[in-house]
């Protein structure tokens, strides 16, 4: 199949950028979107041109490295799919595809389609962990966790930190990412000890880099792991509790 690509090309953070049109012919419909970009890049290299820079790693939808705006949607048109798992058969033959990097102040552009997502690391550093004394591994199921709670925590833990929620959000907010990370740990008994300090600190760092939630719900639809905005409501509730809770009683209040 043949497609026409309009790819955002930008040499570096300060330089001006623009869409450049490429004709990519004779590609397989079974190729992933990234493989199609690989083909384009090989051709560009052969022509002595600068290849299109894009982030990628595992190419099996679990690392969160890849992610671009495809036709105005984060990770493209297929729900619950990262860019690497999106296949060219999703596009009609001969179609024009617009490819653009994530746009957010918290994700400064590095080159072409690559953005710097370190702001997410800053949010994690603020509380996206549990402090434990490391030693020998504890017995499995030593701490009882109800199945339903474990499932909910796992839904949140599915977040791969790709940044699609920020990219899709009309406000450039990172609420879904932060809420997923907070929810994942706050729900589990191991995370309870730091529940209030975690919520307060992670929200603080999030708001330093990103916008605020106005409940559009775009993030949920863009998320390759289909994480629910229910976690944002949980974060909002926990944030007020974090402000009001008596820290000397740790996470005793529900």
């Amino acid at each position, binding site marked *: 199949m043949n497609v026409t690509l309009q790819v955002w090309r930008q040499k570096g953070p300060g330089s001006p950028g623009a869409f450049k049109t490429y004709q990519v012919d004779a590609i397989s419909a079974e190729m992933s979107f990234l493989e199609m970009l690989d083909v384009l890049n090989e051709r560009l290299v052969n022509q002595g041109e600068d290849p299109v820079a894009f982030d990628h790693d595992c190419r099996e939808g679990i690392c969160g490295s890849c992610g671009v705006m495809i036709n105005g949607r984060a990770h493209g048109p297929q729900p619950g799919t990262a860019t690497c798992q999106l296949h060219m058969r999703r596009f009609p033959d001969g179609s024009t595809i617009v490819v*653009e990097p994530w746009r*957010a102040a918290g994700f400064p552009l590095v080159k072409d389609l690559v953005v710097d997502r370190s702001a997410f690391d800053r949010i994690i550093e603020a509380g996206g962990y549990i402090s434990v004394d490391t030693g020998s591994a504890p017995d499995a199921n030593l701490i009882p966790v109800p199945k339903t709670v474990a499932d909910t925590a796992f839904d949140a833990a599915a977040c791969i930190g790709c940044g699609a929620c920020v990219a899709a959000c*009309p406000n450039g907010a990172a609420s879904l990412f932060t809420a997923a990370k907070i929810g994942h740990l706050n729900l589990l008994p191991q995370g309870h000890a730091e529940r209030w300090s975690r919520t307060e600190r992670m929200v603080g760092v999030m708001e330093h880099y990103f916008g*605020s939630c106005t409940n559009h719900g775009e993030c*949920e639809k863009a998320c390759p792991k289909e994480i629910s905005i229910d976690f944002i409501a949980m974060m909002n*509730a926990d944030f007020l509790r974090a402000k*009001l809770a008596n820290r000397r009683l740790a996470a005793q209040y529900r």
Partner: protein
Amino acid sequence: MTTKTETRAPLPVEFYRSAIGKKWVMAVTGLGIIGFAIAHMIGNLKMFLPPVDGVPDIDIYGEALRRLFVPILPEHVFLWILRTGLIVLFLLHVHAAYSLTVMNHRARPVGYQGPRSYVAANYASRTMRWSGTIFLTFLAFHLADFTWGLPPVAPETWERGAVYANFVATFSRPPVTVLYVTASLLLGIHLYHGAWSMFQSLGINHPRFNRARKVAAYVTSGVITIGFIAPPLAVALGYLK
């Protein structure tokens, strides 16, 4: 050894400084304003009630509002307490909206250069800032029309306390009716997103009630809109004279 916690601003101030805190304020003040809107709408529907001893029912209602708690408080006092509360609600709602908008614009200084394709965001959610701002300017017209009686916004025959007569006089002017109906629809669009969004901001989320949240929000916005549109239309169509 004692560990000293960092100095903090007073709790409400610190809470309001955060964006999530502002969203709480947006939601709580929005809820208060919805409460006022419902009371206001019910009051307007008294246009349809028959007069009592020759005095229009809505005029009696207006007088009763001025004389709320009268043996206990002097006339107008409780009404002014309510009005002050309402003004504070509006100020907080607008200030929170303004500062969050500034924050969100900073969060994406360079926008998408290609066309965006929205999946979940709807017309209502994406126009909240516009519907809110336009409605706020409409409120100035509305106060000049009914409360202050400023011509040419208010009709020539405007008279303080003669609610029914003022109402009929105002909506005997077709452009004014169109303006009010448009403003009511705008309010409906604003509430269509706002009333649902409120639950999320307040962290009210439960799998068993999440569908009910949407239904409650849509019914509220629908009822308020229809309730506000009905009396002006009744005048414009000649049902109320």
